[in-house]
């Protein structure tokens, strides 16, 4: 595949990705911080819907032999240490590496600093990589859960998707997504709007 095809398909897919991130409001700092403070559930809903869809899609593509899976190696120490640092960064940024660009796109100026910090972090890691690779990251097998059960990937993927659907139905029952939007669809004051709505409910 040529570089041009890569760039053009990347741009087109990115536009769709960014459009969906903006429409779902998940790129809002209020949604990310709200999720991490366990008071706003839009991030988890978008995330799990995308995971379930990806699992169904890949169950078919891989099950019919059209594509090979590309799982990352299981590097437990690196996954845990890196994951914790990444999570702390996500909470303070109110963004992830991808949604930072969506924030810049809609005009959040602080996201430009998140991007610059991210580039600096990537450069710092690059300098430290030869040492970190030996001391922390190491190597590991490309393990997927269905390897333990000895069943084909597609069966596990469809089971995961079904489990996610059940979880999402339950979460939506506890907290409707519209209640998490807030007056300016930025997750700000979402709790207040839903409280006042439920307080008004008996009078209606």
């Amino acid at each position, binding site marked *: 595949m040529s570089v041009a095809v890569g760039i053009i398909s990347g741009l087109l897919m990115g536009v769709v990705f960014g459009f969906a991130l903006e429409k779902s409001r998940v790129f809002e700092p209020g949604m990310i911080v709200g999720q991490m403070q366990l008071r706003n559930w839009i991030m988890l809903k978008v995330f799990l819907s995308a995971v379930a869809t990806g699992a169904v899609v890949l169950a078919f593509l891989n099950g019919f032999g059209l594509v090979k899976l590309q799982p990352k190696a299981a590097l437990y120490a690196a996954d845990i240490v890196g994951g914790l640092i*990444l999570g702390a960064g996500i909470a303070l940024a109110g963004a992830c590496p991808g949604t930072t660009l969506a924030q810049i796109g809609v005009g959040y100026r602080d996201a430009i600093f998140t991007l610059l910090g991210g580039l600096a972090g990537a450069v710092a890691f690059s300098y430290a990589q030869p040492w970190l690779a030996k001391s922390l990251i190491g190597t590991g097998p490309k393990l997927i859960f269905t390897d333990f059960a000895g069943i084909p990937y597609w069966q596990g993927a469809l089971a995961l998707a079904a489990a996610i659907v059940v979880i999402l139905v339950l979460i939506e029952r506890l907290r409707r997504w519209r209640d998490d939007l807030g007056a300016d669809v930025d997750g700000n004051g979402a709790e207040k709007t839903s409280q006042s709505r439920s307080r008004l409910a008996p009078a209606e």
Partner: protein
Amino acid sequence: MSPFEKAWSPYIAGILIGLLQIPAFLIIETALGASSSYVTVGAGIAGLFDSSLFNIDYVARHVTANAKNLWQVALVAGIGFGAFASMKMSGAARASISPIWAKALGTSSTGSRYAVAFAAGFLMLFGARIADGCTSGHGLSGMAQLSVGSTVAVAAMFVGGIATASLLLRRI
């Protein structure tokens, strides 16, 4: 789900994002991801000032102008354009800083927010590169592929995020 609406159901948006795995696997033979592009761009620029950086294998792999590396840079740039287009179509224009930060940080100083954002970006990418993936690569793609390592990374990500947002940030 009209493009002129300000908010779509998170389920519809999530399904649309998940469907992007189809072109990613079929055209690029890779899964959705975002954080390696920061190495491609960051180390690509830093290498202009310190060319010894390119002697590191990891950097050389990421700055090669091949389809996969540039695809991800284009993808991440495209996210900015897509979000901009969506915002223009619905008219959901934003202030220059989200109003939640004055509450979360306990100050409305823009300088403080910029400093926190820079540090947060640094942590985010330093952590993502140690873990070899972010919310997209480990989260969306790794979990959909039932990857054991990705599931551990995503659990750690939420633990780190919840602890930080609860201990360091104020209630929003």
